[in-house]
Each structure stands twice: as structure tokens, then as C-alpha cells.
């Protein structure tokens, strides 16, 4: 997916294995199907084929979105959610990275950490919610801990694998050039593992939102999840959908950020090279 997207963005001169896409600009091409579905949806609700109890029309959702924005309610909940995700991600990514460096760069580290983490990762982290409530209560801590736990594993697994699969032949050749171990790690091993780390980061972001959704539905008094839960009690499907859309937009933005990082950091890859 990364390669295909990058190919489309770097234009026709880079390696293209997809079919030519005609004259429409890339952005519009990618939006065509979602837009068509949106039109169909509005028409279906407008014509009474679908009850607004089941799902409101896009225009009604937009109105709800507008009202929540103007009242400032959305911004408050959004900031709270963003704060939780950021804190959880920061902890999870840091822990995952440190563990991967320890296990990836030394055999003893691998012996100490890898088996344990491989066992723990098979545990669905969302199943720990009851335990987290008992441990951390119902404040911010269990929500942040849930995000941190969920994000540490994809970072660990990908970065560990990335460190271990850096081209051994290149490493061997570089080892004849007189680099110190520190230089070798900083200049060859870690940059070589960076693509895998970024893949891990993408997964981690996905998991982070998922963990947040679950975390915010347990005894929260703020956040996007709380917004959706209270809306359920008042049968406000439009607000629920606004919450869903906000989650989706946040996920999309996060993905976009990683993609921008990738394009800058992996500029040496043929798919990204513009000459």
C-alpha cells in the first residue's frame, strides 16, 4: 500500500505497476467512491428509505457537527482524547523502542526480553480493561495505560525484526571499513531498521485509537468516547456518528503524519526518489 501510494504521488516517472488512471488528479480519483456513497446515503435518508432513527443523513450529521463545534463542546472532548492518546503513545512507543533496542542489539537482551514479550503480545490488551480498572481506578491512568500497552507491542515487534533483518551483507562490508560499534549502530543498523519502525508506528497509531475508544467508554467524564456514550442515552445517532467521524479523521491524520515522516526519512528508496 505504501509503495502504491508513493508511486501515485511521485508521478509517472517512478516505477508504476498500476494501470494508468486517466486525466483526473490523484486526490479526486481516490475520493470518487466515498463521495458517491455519500450522495447515495443522503438520497436514501432523504427519500425515506432509511429511518433517521437508524442513521441520520449526512446533512443532519453535518449540522450536529457544526453545533458541537460552535458550542466548543467538541474541542474540549477532542483535546482530552488527544491528550490521552499522546500520553499513551509517548509511553508505549518509548517502552517498545527501548525494549527493541535492548533485545535487537544484544543476544543477552534478546534472551532476557524477547520470549517474555512474545508471550505477552498474544494477550489481547483490551481484555485487560477490568484488571486495569481494579489496578488504576477509573481516572486517566487506565485509559493512558491501555493506549501505552497496546502501542508498545507493534513498535517492539517491528523494530526488533527491523534491527535483526538489516542486510547482513551490507553490515559485513561496512564492518571492514573501520567503524566503531556505536557508529555502526547509529549509521547503519538503526537507519536500516527505520522502515520497519515506521511500519510499527503506523500499526501503533491504529491500536492507539482503538484503545482510546474502548478506554473512553469505561467511566469517562470527557473525551470523544464519552461524547458518544452520552449521545447513546439520548438516542442522538447524529452525535454518535460525529464521534465516529472524529475518530476516523484523527486516525487519518495520524496516518498522514507517518506518511510524511516516511517520505522524508526514506528518501533513499526508489519509490520515493524524484530526480
Amino acid at each position, binding site marked *: 500500500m505504501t509503495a502504491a501510494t508513493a508511486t501515485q504521488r511521485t508521478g509517472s516517472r517512478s516505477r508504476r505497476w498500476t494501470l494508468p488512471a486517466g486525466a483526473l488528479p490523484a486526490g479526486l480519483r481516490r475520493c470518487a467512491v466515498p463521495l458517491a456513497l455519500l450522495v447515495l446515503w443522503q438520497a436514501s435518508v432523504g427519500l425515506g428509505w432509511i429511518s433517521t432513527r437508524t442513521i441520520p443523513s449526512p446533512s443532519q450529521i453535518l449540522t450536529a457537527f457544526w453545533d458541537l463545534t460552535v458550542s466548543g463542546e467538541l474541542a474540549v472532548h477532542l483535546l482530552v482524547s488527544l491528550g490521552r492518546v499522546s500520553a499513551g503513545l509517548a509511553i508505549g512507543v518509548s517502552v517498545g523502542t527501548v525494549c527493541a533496542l535492548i533485545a535487537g542489539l544484544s543476544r543477552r537482551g534478546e534472551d532476557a526480553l524477547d520470549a517474555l514479550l512474545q508471550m505477552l503480545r498474544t494477550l489481547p490488551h483490551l481484555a485487560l480493561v477490568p484488571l486495569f480498572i481494579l489496578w488504576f481506578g477509573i481516572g486517566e491512568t487506565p485509559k493512558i495505560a491501555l493506549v501505552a500497552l497496546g502501542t508498545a507491542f507493534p513498535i517492539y515487534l517491528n523494530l526488533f525484526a527491523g534491527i535483526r533483518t538489516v*542486510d547482513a*551483507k*551490507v553490515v*559485513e*562490508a*561496512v*564492518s*571492514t*571499513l*573501520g*567503524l566503531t560499534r556505536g*557508529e555502526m549502530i547509529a*549509521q*547503519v543498523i538503526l*537507519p*536500516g531498521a*527505520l522502515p520497519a519502525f515506521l511500519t510499527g508506528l503506523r500499526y501503533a497509531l491504529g491500536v492507539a485509537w482503538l484503545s482510546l475508544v474502548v478506554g473512553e467508554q469505561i467511566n469517562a467524564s470527557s473525551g470523544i468516547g464519552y461524547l458518544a456514550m452520552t449521545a447513546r442515552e439520548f438516542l442522538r445517532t447524529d452525535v454518535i456518528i460525529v464521534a465516529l467521524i472524529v475518530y476516523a479523521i484523527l486516525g487519518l491524520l495520524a496516518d498522514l503524519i507517518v506518511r510524511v515522516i516516511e517520505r522524508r526519512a*526514506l*528518501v*533513499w*528508496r*526508489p519509490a520515493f*526518489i524524484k*530526480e
Partner: protein
Amino acid sequence: MSHALSRIPASQSTIGKPVVSVRGLVRNFGNGNVLDGLSLDLQPGSFTALLGRSGCGKSTLLRTLAKLDPAPEGTVQLPDERAVVFQEPRLVPWMRVLRNVTLGLRRPDAEARGLAALAEVGLSHRANAWPLTLSGGEAQRAALARALVREPRLLLLDEPFAALDALTRMRMQGLVETLWRAHSPAVLLVTHDVDEALLLADRAVVMADGKIAADIPIPLARPRRHGDPGFIALRSRLLTELGVDEEHLAAREPQRTDARAAGARPGGYGLPAGAAAAPSL
């Protein structure tokens, strides 16, 4: 540009202390000795080709001289200034070509030296390129520049032309000979290709069963050509040492000759005599 890189006078090449001295080297891989009491000296500035069947231990010897493999038994004396070029270019993909060349070079003028080395291999225009955008020949030239910039007294070449197409290979062979003449490192070239050995080397060392089976000087004038009588005579001798019966080979595999002339990757011993002229220098 070569003035930036030191020259070792060619007169040193035949006299004095060897730059590499191996005595009684043994390397065991579990089922028998890959290197079995091997001894070898390389003189400064000499060009030695190391030939042998697959699995005879020639790559292990080269890796030992590159300090990539240990030498558990026996003595190995090496100069500190060593450089290796492998069959694959093995450039670091996330460093531009110049950075690859200067990697690990600890001197203030590293960049200037890197550029000089790239100029020598004819790759100045690609100094700022990413390695994955280079052609096979360009990447291998960058690998040569990376070795050259270290001013090696011992240059180890592990089948460096084997993965290249026939025309690129000929050009690279010419380039290596030029660079060797300009800088006079001791060169050890591991190759499967008898003709390559005869084109480039002063000395052909044939390995068998972990030992030196034959040590044959190649006193041919340069530039060398495949069709020269001396070349043909030495070629027969080397093929015999390698256990290849030329007439037998020609009778049984005539199609192989055609395939190789058309530029197929070398897999066995010997190019067809006269199929390719020596590269012009």
C-alpha cells in the same frame, strides 16, 4: 585526480618483505578442513589471482584475510590498510554514493578524497546519487572507489565482476588494472574465470582441498589478449591444474561457448579464446 592518493613505487613489487604472510592456516567447518595448513605470501604491489573449484576454500581464505573469518590455527600477518570488494556492491542504501565511499574514513579531507576516488572510477557525476538508483556496473565502481579511498596495501577482490554483464565486466577488468597500476596495492582476486586471471594477474594460485595446489607465474606482457600464444599456453595449464580437460569440455559442451560469448554469466572455467579482446586501457 590520482595525485590525492598515494602511490607505492612499482619497484617495490618484487623485492622485500611480503605484505601478506600466511603460515599453516587451518579452518574447520565441522566436516573436514576447509583450509588445511595453507601457507601463502603476497608481495607488495603484486596482483595474484586465486582460482579453484567451488568449495575449495578460496572464499574462506579471502574472508580470513579480510578478518571477516577467524584464523583459529596458524599465523596470518596482514597490513592494517586493507579493503575488500565483494561480488555484490554492498553499498549502504540510505547513504549517498559519496558518503558510502568516505564511510569510516577519519581524516579532515575525507570528502575531497572520496570525490577524487569517485573521479578515478569515472563516477563523479553520481557522487550525490542514492545507491539504489545506480546500475550494477556503477554500483560496483562505487564499491571500488570505497576500497580505493582507503589507500589499501592489500586489496581483496571476491569475484567482483561475476554478477556483471559481459561488456561491463570487460570495462571493470580494465578499470581494476588501471587502478592497480596507479596505486600498486597487493591485489588478491578470487575468481572462477581463468581468462580473467590471465588478463589481470602476475601470478595464479590454484587451491584444492584447502591448500595451494599450484602457484603459477604469469609473465605475460600487458595489455594482454586472449589469442596470444603465451596466453593460450598458460590457459591450458591453468585449466589442467583445475582438473578441466579442455578438449573434453569443448566436445561435450559446444553450446556453452556460444552462450558465454553472448554475455552469459560465467559459471565455470574459461572463456572461449578470442571471443573477447582485452579491454583497451
